[in-house]
């Protein structure tokens, strides 16, 4: 079973040379820490920076330089700042190659819910609806089950949707899963996790074909 850093580490392997990547809040933010040093990648944050660097050293933080999670950040050489309309031109125009975001629920058909629990919690969608409606390559990073032990990989989402038919891949603490027209296809198991455990934690149709390898990190 993976912890949050483990999930981020596994997702980092999906980041290819030359990719522009948008990282959501939470586990996705951790992915930046694990990307291979020998490939060229740039991180975009939808509040208006391309070429985002690590958090600043103490005393070097700048109130005018934050990411979409409102965290203080730095800018790398080659970075640029821009307004919100241009930022979403990058996203909507499919210039961003990979979007990694968290979710409350994902359905077999690629639907995703991550912005609202009616009557209980309404933080808003931020840029998530634009990202999932536009990106060709969306990876969801999340725990396989919620705090009450219920599966987050469902036949149909129960919460209000963020986007439809959009998620391509899911990396959880238990598994790597591809969203196919037939349903959730199990690609890899987390270290020490059995196919049976994954199936038990997955409400949606889980497709298991052949021998499922344990993931390497």
């Amino acid at each position, binding site marked *: 079973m993976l912890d949050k850093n483990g999930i981020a580490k596994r997702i980092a392997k999906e980041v290819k040379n030359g990719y522009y990547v948008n990282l959501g809040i939470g586990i996705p933010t951790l992915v930046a820490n694990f990307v291979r040093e020998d490939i060229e990648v740039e991180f975009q*944050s*939808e*509040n*208006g*920076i391309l070429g985002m660097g*690590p*958090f*600043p*050293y*103490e005393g070097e*933080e*700048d*109130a*005018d*330089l*934050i*990411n*979409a*999670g*409102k*965290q*203080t*950040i730095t*800018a790398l050489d080659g970075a640029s*700042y*821009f*307004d*919100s*309309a241009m*930022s*979403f031109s990058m*996203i*909507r125009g499919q210039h961003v190659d990979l979007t990694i975001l968290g979710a409350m629920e994902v359905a077999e058909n690629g*639907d995703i819910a991550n*912005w*609202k629990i009616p*009557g209980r919690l*309404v*933080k*808003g*969608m*931020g*840029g*998530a*609806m*634009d990202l999932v*409606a*536009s990106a060709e390559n969306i990876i969801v990073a999340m725990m396989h089950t919620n705090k009450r032990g219920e599966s987050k990989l469902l036949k149909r989402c129960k919460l*209000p*949707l*963020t*986007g*439809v*038919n959009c998620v391509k891949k899911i990396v959880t603490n238990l598994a790597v899963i591809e969203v196919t027209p037939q349903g959730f296809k199990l690609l890899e198991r987390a270290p020490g996790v059995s196919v049976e455990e994954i199936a038990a934690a997955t409400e949606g149709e889980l497709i298991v074909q052949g021998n499922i390898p344990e993931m390497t990190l």
Partner: protein
Amino acid sequence: MINKQVEHVQAALEGVKSGMTLLLGGFGLCGIPENAIAELVAMNVNNLTCISNNAGVDDFGLGLLLQKHQIKKMISSYVGENDEFERQMLSGELDVELIPQGTLAERCRAAQAGFPAIYTPAGFGTEVAEGKETREFDGKMYVLEHAFKADFSFVKAWKGDAAGNLIFKGTARNFNPNMCGAAKITVAEVEELVPVGSLDPNQIHIPGIFIQRIFQGKNYEKRIEQRTLTPKP
């Protein structure tokens, strides 16, 4: 050169009345028009419709207007980290319309640029698209979203001149440029009002034509919401 400079925030906000619709720049607390917000609190106008990406925090930004119940409706993309906001929303005191962030930006830009509406893929198939026209182009579905109509736009820039030209700094740029010229009257406050002719015309982010009033802001707090640091090596 057409002079847009006004002496102080009071002159800049002349004509703002209860019941108006306001556009306010900023992302979180980054790049918000602090002086204009403080003056809105002082003016005690209410029943406002505020269009802004976020709603501030409990004791800063638009949170200051929420505390005094001056806001009737918020149109935002993300409203977390604000207990008073959540309380007013769940109790029904505050009307809230949540819309995708890119849609928010582009509805501002549409108003600025004279477009009545835009087709965006964001929100298709979700409750955001309920009651809205949808349409297919090249096999992909889009939602028709309309330009905002607002009375005042309040933006904050880093540098500006009396001609109304603006330069923003870092990620404090965000929605501010898109809101310039998107309301009947755009008011810009700047950290540094510089002499006309001292800004390089090639580096101006927003030309003065989009601005009706500009003033030298004061006492910027520029609060940081999430001070995240890398340990020194």
